[in-house]
């Protein structure tokens, strides 16, 4: 379990994926590649993603849960896919704001 709060960063322990929390709070079982994620810079990468969590995480994409209480931004890509409290996190719809500056 890790403590989610906006701005917090987490890394996978089985691939190169890293994320930053855009939205979310409280204790969450956050995994990547089927293995628990840890605070960035605090863990080693070993092993590989489990087969059922190897869809990959894409750089710069936002990942959210079904009830939209959690949103993560991938700051490093990796082979594992993300999940929170057992539910897979899916790519959130891209924002369509026009460029303003």
């Amino acid at each position: 379990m890790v403590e989610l709060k906006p701005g917090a960063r987490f890394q996978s322990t089985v691939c190169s994926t890293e994320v930053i929390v855009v939205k979310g709070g409280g204790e969450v079982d956050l995994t990547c590649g089927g293995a628990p994620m840890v605070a960035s810079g605090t863990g080693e990468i070993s092993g590989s993603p489990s087969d059922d969590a190897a869809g990959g995480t894409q750089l710069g994409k936002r990942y959210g849960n079904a009830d939209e209480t959690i949103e993560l931004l991938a700051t490093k890509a990796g082979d594992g896919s993300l999940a929170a409290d057992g539910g897979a996190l899916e790519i959130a719809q891209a924002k369509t704001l026009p460029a303003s500056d």
Partner: protein
Amino acid sequence: MNLMMLLEMAAEGLGDRVAVGSLDDGLTYRQLYDRAHGAANRYRAAGVESAVVCDESSPALPIALFGSAWAGIPYVPLNYRLPADDLLALAERAGSAVAIADEPNLERLGGLPGVSSVSAQVFSADPAAGTDGHASPGDWNMDPDDLAVLLFTSGTTGSPKSAVLRHKHLVSYILGSVEFMGAGEDEATLVSVPPYHIAGVASMLSSIYAGRRIVQLPRFDPDVWIDTVEREGVTHAMVVPTMLTRIVDALDARGGAPMLGIRALSYGGGKMPRPVIERALELFPITNFVNAYGLTETSSTISLLGPDDHRVAQYSDDPVEQQRLASVGRPLPGVEVQVRDDDGTVLGPGDVGEIFVRGEQVAGEYREKGSLLDADGWFPTRDGGFVDDDGYLFIQGRNDDVIIRGGENMSPGEIEDVAISHPGVRDAAAIGVPCREWGEKVVLLIVPDGDAPDPDELDDLIQERLRSSRVPSHVEVVDELPYNETGKLLRRVLREQFAHLGDDPTD
């Protein structure tokens, strides 16, 4: 959070795409990352408090911006056009620094205690920069409360204050408003706003995160702007109102042929004259126009009027939809807006008051005065305005500019809007001039479009559309109105210039 996170992602995801400059010899995202590392090493070796920039736009600016974030010191861009004494006074407030400066200021700044100055050429071409290769690990601080940028506000009233923007504000702004790698490989943005303005800082951050190549135009000239658009394959641009006015005039002088290559044109920084935007919509017939409203203290844009609203307003017969062209659209997701009266009561649609904003990107802090956010995080913008029934925000000038005539508050903006709707008026400014009888009286200054209209016609128009208290005591014809370089009307200058009318006994 740290701004370097944005560049690190771009270097990772976009690598060899050109970030800044021409396609044949520009800096790639990877190179920019390496140069930022070199700059960080330079700042750390010097042990300075600030990364000062006192120069026009060049690739040295994004290098210094990200290098300072890497080194953990604030980026402090100064207005290189200031008189020497004013410039040195601001530079001293930045403390010890490495200062990028152009020729006349290189020696001036270098003479300050603790400041070493360097030219942009030497800074960007430093052989120490870029020797680490892309393997250089990011060892920047991730504390979101670290200072990222100090900006001296334009000072249309009083002496400049230094606005504080922390990493969390700017990163929140970018993550909330820009899609990573959202730009196509063929896109390029032309940056002609001053580098010491929030728009200059924000344009670097948002373009780099979007993966849109930055083309810099150091000294704005409308013909050079048009030529650069064509030569560099520019697809996006941001301009302030005075720039768009001059671009429109220059295009008309060239025969009024439409410009089709620009896909998106955003504008902001001051009030856009209605005839200018209407002509621009014709001269850029397939361009997506965006009107952006934001402040230094809010990390740039907080509200925007999008492309569809512009075209609807252009072609609609509905006055409400036409009027949207005078609004700044709706708040960004993640930004809340309230309009409050003098007592702090939150007002409903249509009621004019002071605009308050809240959101992750809202800093609202000055070095001199600390945070101006209230207990619930709301920032008073000092701008007056209202929100319409559909949530569109209309700005009606600074609260400091409100005219108080006989105890009645009136916004100069509403008077100006009516005056400019007259076909013989190209631009207008309403100011309050102190007078014995009313406290202040309304003076209307107009820039005619062709022959000046009869003042009585303007009086009648204002009486009919507003009310008799808004009818100006004097209508004066002027050749042009004074604007600062980001398009803000300098009302203070006008109030001084026309103060003598306050004692005029004719009314």
